[in-house]
């Protein structure tokens, strides 16, 4: 008797819940309408490519249904680790990203520190406005400009010859040993102003009283910079550094693809370009997918590793 009552009440509850859910669904039908089309979009454009990772474990042949593809395990990954080109590519990627990481980090901080010392607001704002400009220009345009600047009769060659560093003008873009430096400096030119914004904002957030107190204690400009400004922006610096570490394999390919030529091919191949070449240009889709997957997974580990590191060092997790 008691059991039956319980059962009906449970059943009732179920019906009630279902009815409530239907009611809720009906009540929020517009919200559903406003979000579910995008869920479908997301599944198509983000999750189906993720499903494409299965290709890395198959001897993928186009035009054959998924179930009939031959599974081959980690063959493509083995192939990747055996390819001498792959190590060259890893070297290039790491070299270029570490170089731009170091330079692209210290220089904007220095710029922000120096900008902070400029008391004339109008002058400072004009400098800032000018320095942000290259950030908004596409890499294609930057490559076009840079090629012109680095050409034989371009201004950089002229400056180097006039200052006596070079005896005669040289093809700066055709020298493999200069390619990484060129790219790092071009990247710096493009992003120094923009990257300094975040540090400048951090400096502006330091309470003015600290500086006043330091002045009372007789601290000069450099002492204040060293003991107040730098420690004051340290949290921001650490966060940005950790985020940068996570993206160390993401040198991208745009600047390399646009700036390179046949003479510097060996030093300009990055991981992304390797995927592009191995995968698309020579039609080895499955192999290219395997390399792309390797990159994604390593990046993911780096991001979460960096996040944990940040949690340990600063008791603050970004993700």
């Amino acid at each position, binding site marked *: 008797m008691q059991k039956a009552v319980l059962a009906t009440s449970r059943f009732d509850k179920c019906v009630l819940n279902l009815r409530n*859910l239907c009611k*809720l669904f009906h009540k*929020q039908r*517009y*919200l559903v309408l*406003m*979000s579910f089309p*995008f869920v479908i*979009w*997301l599944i*198509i*454009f*983000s999750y*189906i*490519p*993720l*499903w*494409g*990772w299965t290709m890395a474990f198959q001897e993928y042949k186009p035009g054959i249904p998924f179930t009939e593809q031959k599974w081959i395990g980690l063959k493509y990954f083995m192939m990747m680790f055996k390819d001498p080109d792959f190590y060259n590519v890893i070297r290039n990627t790491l070299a270029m990203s570490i170089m731009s990481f170091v330079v692209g980090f210290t220089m904007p901080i220095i710029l922000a520190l*120096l900008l902070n*010392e*400029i008391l004339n607001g109008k*002058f400072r704002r*004009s400098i800032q406005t000018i*320095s*942000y400009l*290259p950030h*908004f*220009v*596409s890499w*294609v345009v930057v*490559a*076009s*400009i840079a*090629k*012109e600047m680095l*050409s*034989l*009769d371009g*201004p950089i060659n002229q400056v180097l010859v006039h200052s006596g560093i070079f005896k005669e003008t040289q093809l700066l*873009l*055709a020298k493999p040993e200069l390619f990484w430096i060129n790219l790092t400096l071009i990247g710096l*030119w493009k992003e*120094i102003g*923009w990257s300094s*914004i*975040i540090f400048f904002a951090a400096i502006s957030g330091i309470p003015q009283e600290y500086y006043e107190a330091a002045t009372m204690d007789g601290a000069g400009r450099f002492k204040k910079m060293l003991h107040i400004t730098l420690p004051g922006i340290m949290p921001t610096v650490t966060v940005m550094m950790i985020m940068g570490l996570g993206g160390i394999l993401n040198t991208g390919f745009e600047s390399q693809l*646009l700036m390179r*030529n*046949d003479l510097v091919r060996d030093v300009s191949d990055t991981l992304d370009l390797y*995927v592009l070449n191995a995968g*698309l240009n020579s039609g080895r*889709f499955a192999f*290219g*997918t395997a390399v*792309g997957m390797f*990159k*994604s997974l390593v990046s*993911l580990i780096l991001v979460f590793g960096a996040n944990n590191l940040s949690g340990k060092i600063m008791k603050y997790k*970004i993700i």
Partner: protein
Amino acid sequence: MINLKIKKIDLFKKIDLFDVFNYLGMITLAIITLYPFLNVLAISLNDTTDTIRGGITFYPRVLTFASYKEILTNKNLINSFEVSVLRTVIGTSTSLICTAMLAYTFSRKDYFARKFVTIIFVITMYVSGGMIPSYMLIRSLGLFHNFNVYILPGLIGVFNVIVIRSYIDGLPYEIQESATIDGANDLTLFFRIVLPLCTPVLSVIALFTAVGHWNSWFDTYLYCNGDKMLSTLQFELQRILQSTATLSGNEQNPYKLADPNMQHIEVSPKSVQMAMTIIVTLPILLVYPAVQNYFVKGITLGAVKN
């Protein structure tokens, strides 16, 4: 009198050697940033044959608009300009409305699917299938050589959704509540109340999206390569660049033909290439002074979220 004197001395004391170098350094930075643009502009306005002599600085030696005329009378380039403008306008507006809509549903704490939708979107910020699976997807969707390939894949930026959501979270919820009491449904709430209130954040995101659309060339390279009707300005400039890339080994002779496997591409004289660079940059240079404040607001907006 005495007061005045003290002030003057103060003023002189304030500017020391460090300041002098600092100001000079900043001016140098400004010159290093701007000079390349001026140099390119000067070469683009200079006579083609005169340019080979070299030594153009920031003013044209033999002024001519021939390069611009050549570009502006080229039907292909006019068409690619139209495609660039179209993708920027259509891409930005659709992406803005969709991103804002999704962000609104993210902000509604009573929405039953909120957590689920948020999580599946945020996951894609950290993992993506990568270049080749996306390429194959686009191919099987029939988006090759199709204008929609510029709009659809980049319709929603998850980061932007989160930025807009935190902006909506900052708005007083009472406004929405009182509108609900007055009989507004969720669509009305979004279009009539939330959307107008979000204008500041939306204008920032619109600017970033528009710049992104205008500047992108890789989607044309991958998906619409060789299609004259769907080419974009950036891609055309990139093609000119690639055609001269082979020359960089032998720049003394700028008119040497490109190598045989790059047929169809004629080598453009430097002035034309530079004029093209200026034309591609021009829209950004024109709107930049007016909107640069918004851009800076944008980055601090993102920073607040962090």
